[in-house]
């Protein structure tokens, strides 16, 4: 498990491997992102909005000298936007040599999830969610949606192309 290359994570068959996930909530739903992908967990502060950019982009911020593009996951999932003052967290992700921050509601714990708990996206899942989800893990008490980080960060490239 430890020798999995984070870059290749996208191509893995999740039903056949066991992976560590960081859990998080977005709009009340439990999500998970493989630990290998996450560089940081931070509290987003002083985000500079980027006018004219897509709705999903919160803006840019300075994370220890690096410029991080912050993505509002709620927008990606078509959820209502955050009320002012509502708590938020961010997970830092590196992709293609660039830094991104996914803004979420809160971060939970790290879970080791095995393949037999995994199922691909349910057929009746909303299209918007289907784009952002890589499948679902059946936890004992609830369901955990695997956030498809790569797709999430690609939304604008396809848009701009």
């Amino acid at each position, binding site marked *: 498990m430890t020798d999995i290359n984070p870059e290749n994570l996208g191509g893995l068959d999740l039903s056949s491997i066991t992976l560590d996930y960081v859990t998080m909530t977005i709009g009340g739903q439990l999500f998970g992102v493989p630990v290998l992908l996450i560089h940081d967990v931070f509290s987003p502060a002083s985000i500079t*909005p980027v006018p*004219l950019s897509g*709705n999903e982009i919160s803006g840019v911020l*300075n994370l220890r000298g*690096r410029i991080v593009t912050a993505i509002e996951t709620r927008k990606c999932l078509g959820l209502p936007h955050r009320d*002012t003052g509502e708590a938020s967290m961010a997970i830092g992700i590196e992709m293609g040599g660039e830094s991104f921050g996914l803004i979420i509601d809160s971060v939970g714990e790290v879970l080791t999830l095995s393949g037999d708990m995994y199922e691909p996206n349910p057929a009746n899942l909303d299209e918007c969610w289907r784009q952002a989800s890589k499948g679902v893990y059946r936890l004992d008490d609830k369901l955990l949606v695997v956030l498809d980080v790569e797709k999430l960060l690609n*939304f*604008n490239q396809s*848009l701009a192309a």
Partner: protein
Amino acid sequence: MDDLLSEFLTETAENLEVLDVELITFEKSPNDKTILNNIFRLVHTIKGTCGFLDLPRLEAVAHVAETVLGKFRDGVLTVTPAAVTLILESLDQIKELLAYLEHNASEPEGDDKDLIARLTLAAEGGLSGEGSEAPSTAHTETDAEALERAFEEAEVDVPFGVTADVLENDETENEETPLTSSLSKPTDQSSSVQEKNLESSLKNQSIRVNVDILEHLMTMVSELVLTRNQLLQMVRGNEDSEFKVPMQRLSNVTAELQDAVMKTRMQPIGNAWKKLPRIIRDISQDLDKKIELNMQGAETELDRQVLELIKDPLTHMVRNSCDHGLESLEKRRELGKPEAGQVTLRAYHEGGHIIIEIEDDGQGLDVERIKEKILSKDLVPAAELETMSEQQIQRFIFNPGFSTAEKVTSVSGRGVGMDVVRTNIEVIGGSIDLRSVAGKGSIFIIKIPLTLAIVSALLVDSGGFKFAIPQLSVVELVRSGAGSDSVIECVNKTQLLRLRNRLLPLITLSELLGLENINSDAAPHDNEVNEEIAPTKTQSKAQFVVVTQVGPQRFGIVVDNVFDTEEIVVKPVSSILRHLPTYSGTTILGDGSVIMIIDPAGIAAKVDSHESDDAENKVDAVTHFDRGMDTTSLLIFKAGSGESKAVPLSLITRLEEIAVGDIEPSNGQNLVQYRGRLMPIVHVSPGATLKNEGRQPVLVFADGERSLGLAVDEIVDIVEETLDIEMASQQPGLIGSAVLKEKATEIIDVSHYLTQHQSNWFDNTSDSTKISSRRILLVDDSAFFRNMMKPLISAAGYDVTAVETASEALDLRDKGAAFDLVISDIEMPETDGLALARAIRQDDKWGEVPLVALTSNTSAEDEEKGFEAGFHKYVSKTDRSALIDIIHETLTVKGSAA
């Protein structure tokens, strides 16, 4: 040791290390073209550099090795282990030579005939059979076999890599090559000690630091700055804190550290040019040419990383300019060009980019030969080729394997150069283009984005957000609104600023970026565009106009506040934001906040699209402009004072560049022999003088046998725009000013110059003109005159339709067109003006329309005839103010209500 040499050694050593690895990979997959191309380029670079440094032995070896590789690349030779071994052997030989060079600063005695002979043989196919080398001597056979064996076994315990006979006199040195590779391991203890010493001597002068480390340093310093700022903030509150003094010290040290780290990354481009004078000198000797190298803007600072990457391409290009661009000495003499060819290097910042130009005054690119080459290489089907513009064809030289040099010289000509150049430049996100005129020379333009550089930027506030505008494009700042003389005015919601009697188009940053919504909306990144923004709102409070210049375009960016100018480090915007043309980068300010850097070029494009939208809206909305808006092609040029001037393109017969030597003063005029006649040359700007040397750009106006050359300083562009003269001019020679490409431009009154220098210009030209309720019909058979009168009358505020013949005019009448005034020439072929007037009078439709006759014969007798025919007024063609007066008068008397 020579700086140049030591740099070469370090660089080549690195290259060779790469080569070893590449070659081994290559042998495993001989069909991989990318690897082969890489190898080829590396060897080519080594060869090229050797040439300049006068290292004939090295050069010779590299040259043959390159030949063999070239044959691999072209598929002439198949790649066999034996052949690769041979290449490796020659690389080892190069290493040995380099090692010697490093210790002694000169090449060892002797030559490499033997190796070269085998390489040449290989190039001719002598080694093509699997493992069946046909070496020229028994000695080399063993050598090659040893190499091969060694290569295959990977573990070698004998030092080798040199043909031992070559460097006999330097046995020990051979063994201590500091350029360790899997193939040459020194076994001797003593020699490795020596090796250390030698290595250090070379490396003490400069340290090669991985850019990542510099980048990391930079990041850490930014962090330090942020922390310092936080601390400062904490201490600020209480003045006599014990921390105050240490804080100040920390602050200073941090600032210095920041400066120093920044400096490690920035270097003047002159550093990359240092090699060039010597290279030029050597080339000029090699090729027997006289070459003068001019360097401008050497102080332009570039990010170190960028600099490294463009160094080689630049060298290649300069070499190309000298070798292919400049003609031979004899040819230049024949052509009457100065013997010394000029190669000019220029570097400057422009609109968020660094531009590097390499210009030569040589023969230019031979388009025909490029075409042949394209066809012979089957790059493009012949039919398609025919449709391509000259420039498109010229750009093919950037394709791999493309060289138009007739023979392969040691300087260049293997078609590797431009290909490498393009690849290297594209790696750093730059672009390369060229302009070439046969016989006049070529200019290569490299454009490198600023993404890695530090720029000085103006920090502004708009709608509560901070932005940076690169200082380079900022021309001036104007304060407007409350308590200021400058007032922002609106025309149909388009904002304009009067700036020194010119109208400056404005764009409000907050509107452009939709910042109003961001503020009003709870969600800070809602992107729906608020359509209606009250036009008066902007005038109530004080605002600043950042007058910005992008290329020829000048416009104002309206912002709420202007802060400081700061040196900022440009960081590229994230790929998911890169499609936004408004930003050229992001930066972190001293206080740790991230702000976007505005790309003035992107804004300029927005200004453009806004304007054209408006133009369309106008056409839609205002129905009585049913004839739409004619666009006119205008030639923009510079003459005299800085402002651009323009003249309708259709008036110009030809654009010429006349050698200054051909211009002869005579009787107070400058004359030139042009197409068998004497043509006067007049400078557009009365005070200005013609150029002293080189070629003078001239706009040639010809009508029949007469011609006049208007000398200008520089031809800038041709634009297709609606000619909307905003301000009529009283100054002779000017019709007025119009905004072309967002820039106030003076429209030249060509007639002024023509009549001034050829008083009889308008005799016999026959024109006729008509006008109707603010719409004027102009009938004139001379295209020249029509084109001149049209802008003139539109300058006076009328809508002009011009036709060539009387019958066209009558056609218009029959189709139901209505005009308020008809201006017609008298002398016209077929139906003359008088007949036209009679025809118009006879018909009810236009029966009442005033007719004005234009003529160059204004005798009382002629006038009488005209009035009989039905003309109301007579006016001389050369008297433009009288014409305008008459139009005004006639239309006012008529009381036309339009």
